[in-house]
């Protein structure tokens, strides 16, 4: 009896897990394709394929601009983080100098900062630089989220590169920058993809700074959270779901394609740490 129960129980558990994980998104897609009264149809199966919500979400607010803003911020943050991360990782991963360990721990500690802790200070900086309500404000502030783990993961990777390779390059006459650029960088691209992806997702997702420093020139999370209808009760759910699907689908595709790398990146930082 238990022989049959065990696999049935197991598959039941698997089914529950999968449904639990996927249902909200499935339901969001369902809703996004319904409009008008159909929105409130509680049926769990797709029974309407009305795409007017997808049009509406772009008409009711500058959604295309919001998406563009998010892309610009996320891509810039990734590029800056990777550049700073690679250069820092070389110093921290391959050169022995006094205070190296302490520095690494401090950088990691920054990732523990609650975002509010730097809010007022950064607000002042943003105001001073005249960047309020602009994308550069977000490009700058998001770095506090992405730099620590980027430096950490890239440093771990750099440490693993064979010493003799570096020495051969030195004997060939390479300067440290040349070693990084022409020998290490080509070997590190898996790590760069991983950290780049994680940084992209973090910047794309970021809400507090976007809400506080650029409330009018919005990125996607702020845009979605502020979608309102005529009154509080009349939230344009169809539009909201359409917008959600639009911004989530590419992300899901990215994550699914690169899932191994992402998992490796996430766990490397945590497990080793």
């Amino acid at each position, binding site marked *: 009896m238990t022989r049959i129960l065990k696999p049935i129980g197991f598959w039941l558990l698997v089914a529950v897990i999968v449904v639990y994980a996927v249902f909200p998104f499935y339901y969001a897609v369902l809703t996004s394709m319904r409009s008008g009264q159909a929105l409130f149809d509680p049926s769990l199966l797709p029974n309407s394929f009305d795409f007017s919500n997808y049009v509406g979400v772009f008409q009711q607010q500058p959604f295309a601009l919001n998406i563009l803003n998010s892309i610009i911020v996320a891509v810039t943050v990734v590029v800056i983080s990777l550049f700073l991360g690679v250069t820092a990782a070389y110093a921290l991963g391959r050169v022995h100098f006094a205070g190296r360990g302490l520095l690494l721990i401090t950088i990691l500690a920054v990732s523990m900062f609650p975002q509010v802790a730097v809010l007022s200070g950064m607000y002042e900086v943003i105001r001073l630089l005249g960047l309020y309500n602009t994308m550069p404000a977000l490009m700058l502030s998001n770095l506090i989220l992405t730099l620590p783990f980027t430096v950490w993961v890239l440093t771990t990777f750099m440490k693993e590169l*064979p010493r*003799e*390779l570096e*020495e*051969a*390059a*030195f*004997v*060939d*006459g*390479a300067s440290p920058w*040349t070693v990084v650029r*022409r*020998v290490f960088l*080509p*070997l590190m691209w898996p790590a760069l993809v991983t950290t780049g992806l994680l940084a992209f997702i973090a910047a794309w997702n970021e809400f507090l700074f976007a809400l506080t420093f650029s409330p009018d020139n919005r990125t996607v999370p702020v845009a979605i959270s502020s979608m309102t209808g005529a009154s509080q009760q009349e939230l344009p759910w169809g539009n909201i779901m359409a917008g959600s699907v639009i911004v989530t689908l590419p992300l899901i595709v990215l994550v699914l394609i690169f899932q191994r790398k992402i998992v490796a990146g996430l766990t490397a930082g945590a497990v080793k740490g």
Partner: protein
Amino acid sequence: MASVTLKNIRKAFGRIETVHGVNLDIEDKDFVVFVGPSGCGKSTLLRLIAGLEDITSGDLLIDGRKVNDKTPKDRGISMVFQSYALYPHMNVYQNMAFGLELAKTANTTIDAKVREAAQILELTPLLERLPKQLSGGQRQRVAIGRAIVREPKVFLFDEPLSNLDAALRVQMRISIAKLHKQMGATMVYVTHDQVEAMTLADKIVVLNAGNVEQVGAPLELYHNPRNLFVAGFIGSPQMNFIDTEVLASDPSGAKIALPGGGSVVAKVDGSSVRAGDKVKLGVRPEHLSETGGEASFKGAVEVVEELGESHFLYVRGGDGKLITLRHAGDAPVSAASDVTVGVPGDLCHVFKADGTALRKKEAGVCAPDSPEAQMKSQPAQLLPLSGRQAVSSSRRRRWTSLNMA
């Protein structure tokens, strides 16, 4: 001219000194081998010459110029690493061209030099391949090629053959020897394998725990080891050491007691020892006689190993020590039989309690019909011919391999 001079070089990692005051003179076109057990400091010494480690104190001169503070590139050296250290994302051509590229050499020059090196090392058909598509031996050759193209003053090799299998190692050894003749460059080679040392070197530097034990030509080290360590390190199988004492001594010889009551008159300068001094008697397995002689001791054969071209006898002497004998051909005796081991007075070594060897009265081997040989006592004549032949034939072998170039 590319000479390398080390003056009192010391290296300390933190507070631990690993290289203690090394003095060395490497002449232009020399092939010098640093040899010694793991941890003796040979790789460290090589890296000090290369500039990959800082010299704690002392002076390093390449070509007469002090290079302590210079980067590897400015020292005019090239290095072949133990793990080859090829750039994995570059193909063979790019690997070899990298150094020249960084030196901003003209493309046509780079091309000419890379192709020339590729031809010498038979790498031309492999130029487009990536390192992961190459075998171990091919990678090794690319590593050497990378070192050649820069036309350095001094070539440094850090145990380049230790990752190769036995057959390949022999092949590569011959290639490296050929290369040396062809290029006429100064080469410094590090290995823990004394066979490589003996076959490749013009000069061997034996290192032990950061100290230079002895420097000399391979045969010099074989015939006249200056101390216990060098005697035990050079020569395979290892020299036999018998704990014994001096019975009588004078500047022309020392009478050493043998287990079982006999004695042998070693042809060494015995002026620094007296009767009663404890010494170690050293005789190589190939020099001991299986058929007894004027100076001999009895023993029981415990194990016989037949290799076809040679055989080993492991004999338990009267003092309980296991003695190794090695000679050509099949074993004349079988296990569990008794044998009389003959000890040749002119081929044995005497080591004092502090490990230093007493100076031999004759330097190395003399021609069979020389006056000295005639004057030698019985043990020399009773020496199995294989002993002498082994020595001179190995010398012949060495020159022949170079002629195969």
